[in-house]
């Protein structure tokens, strides 16, 4: 994907966001009132908790590793739900027939005890589930990035193409008109009495050979050739070290498509540093083994999974091949972008949830960084760090504050 496309997509996404927010707010406010919260903040908190902790086994509307959660707030009382989440095996052992039936139905698979949740957090998750279940389907339509109504800012590439085609047509028309004029003029001259010299000029044949041997032609052609060569070399030179599309084979055939795509496991679950550290962190085997444990874990007999166990048994760390390589001279910090800037992982890493083998999606050149810093609005909301800057910026400009407006293009933001 080119930078332009990427940026266009990014702009679209950013314009869609507030709309989604508004609509979900509208749908939530239509709900009835019970002990579950309809406060958007609570639902957001619940959504985030759900993604991090529940989504690997539960979906809202579909049966998954565990049952669909839609309607659970009707089937069970809140205290029952809370007790179950905190310690499911205890509740099942207490002999509740509903729970026992469920336990049997799901092949005696117990749910992990989430004893670190407090009651409020569990309520927020259930609130989220309820809000999600009752969401009107139209909200999904709104999120469609292809909808022309939602892509406000920026000139789309289709539009540019249309202009280009129009221009070409106009030029061809002009050419035809000019040729017509020449023919008409020639006919007119042929009808007239002319002296010898003029006749010669009029009748002179088109000499292709002379044109080729013409110094001017050779000069122009040589210039064009050199320009093309130079351009190719410079383009080539700019691409040295650029590994766009780099997709090395990894020691374990781990698929992001299965984990992040199909099972929707939150990126944070494995990449634990992404919100707090410079490095996103590649998970250590103990995180893998939360699900794939050697005793009764998922797919414990798969040869790929066994490589994890072997690494632990042999005390030999897994040597992943690094896909995204920034040079030492550039400092990049994930926390700044993900936690503070609220940038989606996909903005840089592309549709990672669709990749079986991770591929370097962006070219990671300085131009690419700078481009984004020029276009991206700063996520200033609720962050007191930016309050004064936003105020000062508003005095000068009506545009939203971009990264470049507060020094995001300066050398020592990344190079030190």
């Amino acid at each position: 994907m080119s930078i332009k496309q990427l940026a266009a997509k990014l702009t679209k996404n950013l314009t869609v966001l507030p709309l989604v927010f508004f609509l979900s707010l509208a749908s939530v406010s239509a709900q009835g009132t019970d002990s579950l919260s309809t406060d958007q903040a609570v639902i957001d908190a619940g959504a985030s908790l759900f993604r991090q902790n529940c989504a690997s086994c539960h979906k809202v509307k579909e049966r998954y590793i565990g049952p669909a959660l839609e309607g659970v707030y009707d089937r069970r009382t809140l205290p029952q739900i809370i007790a179950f989440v905190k310690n499911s095996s205890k509740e099942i052992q207490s002999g509740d027939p509903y729970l026992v039936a469920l336990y049997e139905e799901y092949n005696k698979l117990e749910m992990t005890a989430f004893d670190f949740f407090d009651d409020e957090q569990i309520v927020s998750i259930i609130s989220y589930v309820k809000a999600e279940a009752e969401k009107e389907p139209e909200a999904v339509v709104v999120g469609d990035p292809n909808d022309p109504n939602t892509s406000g800012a920026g000139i789309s590439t289709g539009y540019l193409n249309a202009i280009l085609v129009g221009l070409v047509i106009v030029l061809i028309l002009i050419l035809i008109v000019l040729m017509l004029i020449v023919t008409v003029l020639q006919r007119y001259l042929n009808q007239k009495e002319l002296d010898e010299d003029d006749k010669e000029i009029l009748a002179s044949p088109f000499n292709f050979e002379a044109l080729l041997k013409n110094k001017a032609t050779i000069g122009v052609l040589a210039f064009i050739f050199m320009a093309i060569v130079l351009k190719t070399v410079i383009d080539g030179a700019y691409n040295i070290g650029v590994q766009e599309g780099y997709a090395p084979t990894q020691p374990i055939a781990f698929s992001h498509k299965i984990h992040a795509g199909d099972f929707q496991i939150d990126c944070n679950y494995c990449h634990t540093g992404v919100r707090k550290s410079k490095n996103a962190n590649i998970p250590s085997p103990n995180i893998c083994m939360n699900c794939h444990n050697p005793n009764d874990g998922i797919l414990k007999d798969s040869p790929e999974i066994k490589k994890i166990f072997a690494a632990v048994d042999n005390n030999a760390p897994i040597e992943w091949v690094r896909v995204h390589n920034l040079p030492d001279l550039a400092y990049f910090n994930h926390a700044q972008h993900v936690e503070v800037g609220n940038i989606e992982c996909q903005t840089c890493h592309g549709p990672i949830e669709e990749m079986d083998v991770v591929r370097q999606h962006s070219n990671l050149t300085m131009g690419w960084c700078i481009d984004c810093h020029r276009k991206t609005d700063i996520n200033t909301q609720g962050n007191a760090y930016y309050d004064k800057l936003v105020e000062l910026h508003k005095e000068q400009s009506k545009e939203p504050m971009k990264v470049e407006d507060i020094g995001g293009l300066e050398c020592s933001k990344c190079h030190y």
Partner: protein
Amino acid sequence: MKDNNKRYWKGLEELNNDPSYLKNKGKEFPADLPRISKSEEEGHSGWERRDFLKMMGFSVAAASLAACEAPVRKAIPYLNKPVDVDPGIANYYASTYLNGGDYCSVLVKTREGRPIKIEGNELSKVTYGGTNAQVQASVLSLYDEERLRGPQAGGTDKSWAELDQEVIAKLNEVAGAGGQIRIVSNTILSPTTLDAIEVFKATFPNTEHVVYDQQSAYGIAKANETSFGSAVIPSYDFGKAQVIVGFDADFLGTWISPLEFSHQYSQNRKVGPKQKSMSRHYHVESNMSLTGANADYRIKVKPSQQGSAVATLYNLIAGKAGAAATSLSNWDNAHLKKAADDLWNNRGSSLVVSGSNDPAVQILVNAINDLLGNYGTTIDLSKPVNFRKGNDEAMNQFIDDVKGGGIGAVVFYNCNPVYDHARGGELSQNLSKVGVKISTNDRADETASLADYIAPDNHYLESWNDAEPKAGNYSLAQPTIAPLFDTRQAQSTLLTWAGNNTTDYYTYLQNSWKTRFFDNQNSELDFQIFWDKAVHDGVMEMSASDAASGGGYTFSADFGAVEQSISSNYKGGSGLELAIYQKVGVGTGSFANNPLVHELPDPVTKVTWDNYVTLSQTDATEMGIEMGEDSTSMVDISVNGTTMKAPAVIQPGQAEGTIGLSIGFGRTKAGKVGNNLGVNAYPAITTLNGTQSFNVTGVTATKTEESYRIARTQTHQTYMDRGFVVQEDVLSEYQKPNWERHHKPKISTWSKEDHSEKPLNLSLWKGHKYDNHHWGMAVDMNSCTGCSACLVACNVENNIPVVGKDEVLMRREMHWLRIDRYYSSSDDAESMRDKENPEANPEVTFQPMMCQHCNNAPCETVCPVAATTHSTEGLNQMAYNRCIGTRYCANNCPYKVRRFNWFKYHDNKQFADFNTAMNTDLGKMVLNPDVVVRSRGVMEKCSLCVQRIQAGKLEAKKNGQRPKDGEITTACAQSCPTNAITFGDMLDANSEISRLLDFKAEDEGKREPQNERAYFVLEEVGVSPNIYYMTKIRNKDKA
């Protein structure tokens, strides 16, 4: 450079306009690029260097285009990630730096489990968050290639089990035969380690623990035993003293507890609009020490005059107090009389200290302090300190016993007496008479290499330990990394050999703290909580139960004996006198294999990589010694029959008839960095009144014909005769209302022809607008003692390469921060006779100098590739990868703070022997991963620790708030023991720097401080720096 009628000069070359100085003073890069001309090289192919480079450039481009396959890089996660370790996030652990009796409570910064930087622990009531050059450098010693990889017996590797078995058998054999066993160590500050030694002594009853110090203070303890009945070194409080008189005590550099004293001392030296008073400091010494350089009045004496100088002061004070004077001859010195008057006027808030190790002199010092009523105010005998516990008599007895063959076994516990004791030579010759010799040293050094067994101890960053620097002040050390090698804590080793039930020192330490402290307190009920808090804080205070109550001491002295001792011992005599001293960098020599302390220029002499004989200009002229910028002669000195050869350095302020020589050099088995640098001064130390004496009389020094190149940085990076760099005044003037600095440059313009325009108001540029932050720094030249902790801190923080002596000689040192030391002539009466030769006893000013981050930066405008630019936060930024190395910026910098990478200093065999942090996998572990390692051909300079600024801002953003003042600070500011450097956001009205500089509220952005002391260096150049300097104020009479 001139101010008033003073002339400032960096060295004698500058004062005397030496040709070697003049040749290079206008050049940033004195050495030209090597360029071979055709005529010189007959038969040469006719290619010029530039033609060759052109071809090279083309082929390199072609080759790199062809071979652009990127290497495969691995990303290897933890197998089981520790909960507390997040790659990319630094963890800080409180710990304790211990090196013999040297102590500092520290925070250790670790990244991915590797210690990479040491910071001071602000919770400490002893070191107050300060550090010194050695503490800063100590982190590199952890990654020293010369450390032993495991236990050894007779030079061959052994397993711990084998070693234990053999050693226990041998010790039992010795003990069974009734043989004497000795444990020899330097001062041990750890009470639990002393317990472990007691356990060892209980198992092997004929064991004695012998303690010695490289720089002994045994004389103080002995004097206090005579005077007060308790053989202790008391706590001193320089912060309460309005008048300080120091006799040869380098208390800001190396004497007893320099970090603590620096902190206290600076409290009374910081002046400002609210505090217009400061202490007055007299210093009486032979060599120009760091402390002497900071004194208001410095009095030169020969070592043999120390006795009569102290006696004179005593007689003067006794005269005022109506006490009996001694019969010792009075010395007529105007400054000493003035000191006596000042002391007497500040009774109870004054302090007299002496660095002498002679009990007789110390008794007189005690008598002076007693007459002045300083006991209970500035001196606290009820809170003794443990920094120097060495017993010179016991150590001498030990060496005699070894000679006599009366010792069956000896354990050298982390000490190296063969090298660093005056009688080390005797010891090494006779050590073969000892049956079993064991060492716990971390390397096979001079002593350990003579031992039968080496059981190497962990580095302090790998160890559990505790410390009691002062009665009632405790401190814990925790490991910040697992032992890198197969080493074992020496305490565990002793406990194992003693057959103790608990051999694990961690458990032993916990048990010790349980019984020693936890059981004696009531505030915490659970031991684990008590312990965790102590580990977290690193320090703990307990009321010392065993110390006697204060004020219960009465002074008594036998003046007759003292008089007799002094009059017989301080006679002088013929020949030169030698004053042996310690440097703040290399110290006692235990740091000899650490390149950071060698490349650190000595604060006073500015010499790197050497020790040398300092002598006065008068004596040098007499001996016919001439010094150029980096050339000098070798001199032969003969002390007590031994002859040493060392280069001569002419030192302004050196007392005539004396020479100085530092300990810590001349190591032979320290490692490849420290071996064979300089000469070993320990054998020159003598014994006086049963204690070690660092002063030797009857020394001869003769010039040899041999010349020597000495790497001095003092005249590197000069200001090319530009004007006002140092500004100073005396206190009495400063106290006047409406005081103004002497020098406030004004400029004539076409509209104001009367020299009335401020340079800052004139600019070709529009200026910068700062909305977010405006970082700035203020350097207080009054509290800067020149100790150079900041310099080493900067090196470690910013991955600055060590370039070695040869490159320093070529003026290519890479330090981003240098400390300029200026001499100037004092104008007072006593030195009038010195007017003829201003170098006789000059005043000294220290000025830390780093990139000034100018708002109108001259470097930025001349860079052809815009590699150095200005940021919206006031930083002058340097993009290394854009730099093409034209060096125009360094040419155009008026402060000469830019450094050029002449070589690739990392992974380069040529530099592997001294740039140890960048040439081996082990050494590289110390590098700061947030700062790039620069390569050849690029310019670099102080970045104002931009990596810390960025990290601090990110932390604030993550928390959704503005950064709090103090959260973001530079490495230099953080390391300073006297807080002389203040860093902060000048847009934040409540920040310390804004309060200190006191900006006018109305003209925001102009940054004009109302604090009259603040000025810009070279303000007249109009570059508008972001670094302010605070005028130095001396507490002396106006001339």
